[in-house]
């Protein structure tokens, strides 16, 4: 029996994740099963929690939430939902991380690969000028 492919939900301040997803089509081609939910300034924690919960309920088990930064309401709400749903949560959304997550869906449930994704995220930052000088 094959399990359903993990989906990816980004939670971003003001909804910039939607832009990221859209623009990554330039590198990744058509992107399916990936969506963004915007945290808007007027949202209360409760409202935002309910919105995210409704979205997570419709996602296959083992899916992944990527919140934009640690300590924001986006990561706080995702953390809260992890108590009740079979999902992985990672913070620190960026293009490299998203592209890796898209690829890693083929390997299986993203929720089981969060530590690997954290490594990808860490390694995505590089002092390019310094790296060049050391060559």
């Amino acid at each position, binding site marked *: 029996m094959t399990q359903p492919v993990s989906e990816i939900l980004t939670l971003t301040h003001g909804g910039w994740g939607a832009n990221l997803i859209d623009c990554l089509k330039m590198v990744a081609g058509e992107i399916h099963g990936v969506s963004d939910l915007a945290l808007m300034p007027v949202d*209360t924690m409760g*409202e935002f929690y309910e919105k995210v919960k409704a979205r997570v309920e419709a996602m296959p088990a083992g899916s992944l939430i990527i919140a934009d*930064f640690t*300590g*924001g*309401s986006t990561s706080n709400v995702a953390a*809260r939902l992890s108590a009740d749903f079979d999902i992985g949560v990672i913070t620190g959304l960026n293009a490299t991380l998203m592209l890796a997550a898209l690829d890693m869906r083929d390997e299986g449930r993203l929720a089981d690969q969060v530590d690997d994704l954290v490594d990808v995220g860490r390694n995505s930052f590089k002092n390019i000028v310094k790296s060049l000088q050391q060559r």
Partner: protein
Amino acid sequence: MAKIVLCRIDSRLIHGQVVTKWVGQSQANRIAVVSDELDADPFMKNIFMMAAPPNIKVDCFGVAGFCQQWREDQLGAGNVLVLFPNLASVRQAVIDGFDIAQIQVGGLGGGPGRKVVFQNITLDDADETVLRDLQERGVDVYFQTIPEDKPQKLADILKRL
């Protein structure tokens, strides 16, 4: 006796604006969250403790527990950023002896029947009653979401209702 470097009302408690802006701006090395609801929810409490920047000690209190601690030793030592989720809990704390001179209103959430008074800060009738009460008690209340905003005096805010 701790130094209260900032006392803020923010329905989101420890979140983006607080973590990235106010902790640094106020030079706090501790955060005290005062919320009966959070105090009764150990899992959520853990999440907020994790949300704080490293090197910042977080304590969570119910309103009664906070006031008791305040009366005992003014929260001990350090530079404390005190966070309340709403006006009602602040008012209760002030009545119970939290003699704070200045309170910043940063965010009260949204909802039907609430009027926008500054940026994304909204007030309803119950909030107005509490604000006038705090004003009469001599507490200096101002509205400011992020440090880049010009602080708004309560008297000016009340004129917009």
